[in-house]
């Protein structure tokens, strides 16, 4: 990835677009954008295919238990990371934006933990009052 970043990060600025628009001066930045080689997108695309195939194979082969879980979650996070970092260009944004967008969803994990306790408790009460299996 380091090599890709090194030759892929080229920031271009177009100043002409705002020149005749007096309202835009001082408010809108000049058009700033990144240009990466098409090859980068094709490589990421190929990786997304491979990772999807791998996670499908986990189900097809019929792995169970912790191995299944860790593999599915690893493939999921790798795919999500590739999409956000490269396709959505988050890897080249300033850290202020990255933190503002990436950190809040991570806090959802706290909510997940709360609901895990809650559903364990619900299951316990259901089992106690209605029996183990219907």
């Amino acid at each position, binding site marked *: 990835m380091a090599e890709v970043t090194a030759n892929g990060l080229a920031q271009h600025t177009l100043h002409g*677009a705002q020149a005749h*628009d007096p309202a835009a001066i*001082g*408010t*809108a*930045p000049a*058009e*700033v*954008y*990144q*240009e*990466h080689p*098409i090859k980068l*997108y*094709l490589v*990421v*695309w190929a990786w*997304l*295919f491979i990772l*999807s195939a791998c*996670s*499908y194979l*986990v*189900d*097809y082969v019929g792995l169970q238990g912790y191995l299944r879980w860790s593999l*599915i*979650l690893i*493939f*999921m996070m790798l*795919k*999500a990371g590739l*999409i*956000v970092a*490269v*396709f*959505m*260009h988050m890897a080249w*944004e*300033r850290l*202020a*934006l990255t933190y*503002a*967008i990436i950190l*809040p*969803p991570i806090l*959802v994990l706290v*909510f*997940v933990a709360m*609901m*895990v306790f*809650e*559903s*364990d408790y619900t*299951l316990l009460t*259901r*089992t106690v009052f209605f*029996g*183990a*299996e*219907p």
Partner: protein
Amino acid sequence: MADTTLTHTGQAQPRPAGLQGVAADWSSDQRAFKNVSWGKAMMWIFLLSDTFIFGCFLLSYMTARMSTRVPWPNPSEVFALHIGGSNIPLILIAIMTFVLISSSGTMAMAVNFGYRHDRRKTAILMLLTAALGATFVGMQAFEWTKLITEGVRPWGNPWGAAQFGSSFFMITGFHGTHVTFGVIFLIIVARKVWRGDYDTGRPGFFTSRRGRYEHVEIMGLYWHFVDLVWVFIFAFFYLW
């Protein structure tokens, strides 16, 4: 100690009063995201809020599934297709995943060609993205039809826990709606690219803002997000 130099910025600007002042103060030169236009920042913030919506759906699904005594239907069998005399598990979902990932790939390249001001390639790639998205929605409609004819309802199904149907229709239905709206907007933006709106800076029909090639990237952000959500749905709903 170094001398502190006071920078005189000249006469202070008179601030407008009343409601205009409220608007002016809140929008006064405060920029947290230095090299990102507000259009792009706002799309990111919208996507963040959408993340919470889908996060809550997946959470409620997790809670329903963990707290029920009734066995959950096995997605591997429920979503299997009977092809060539044998049941292939999850095959339709796998194809849908590949279709959506491909559409994300074409979208990423459309953004790239957009910034190179290559109108033809950008528009063609965006229309290809829209076509793949429409294919995805079509396959989802097929899947829904198949499950409904098999007797899956939001309040029950033939194989196990009743919450399976409600979670399934809620989550995939909301995602399918997002894809559908994405396809509509892809076609709108592709038309603008084709017509050269972003080269001439022609104002938009609804917002009256000058067209820029950045709109293609903002559209791309939304589209990649739709793909991103599918990654999580695929892992948590279909593979669990």
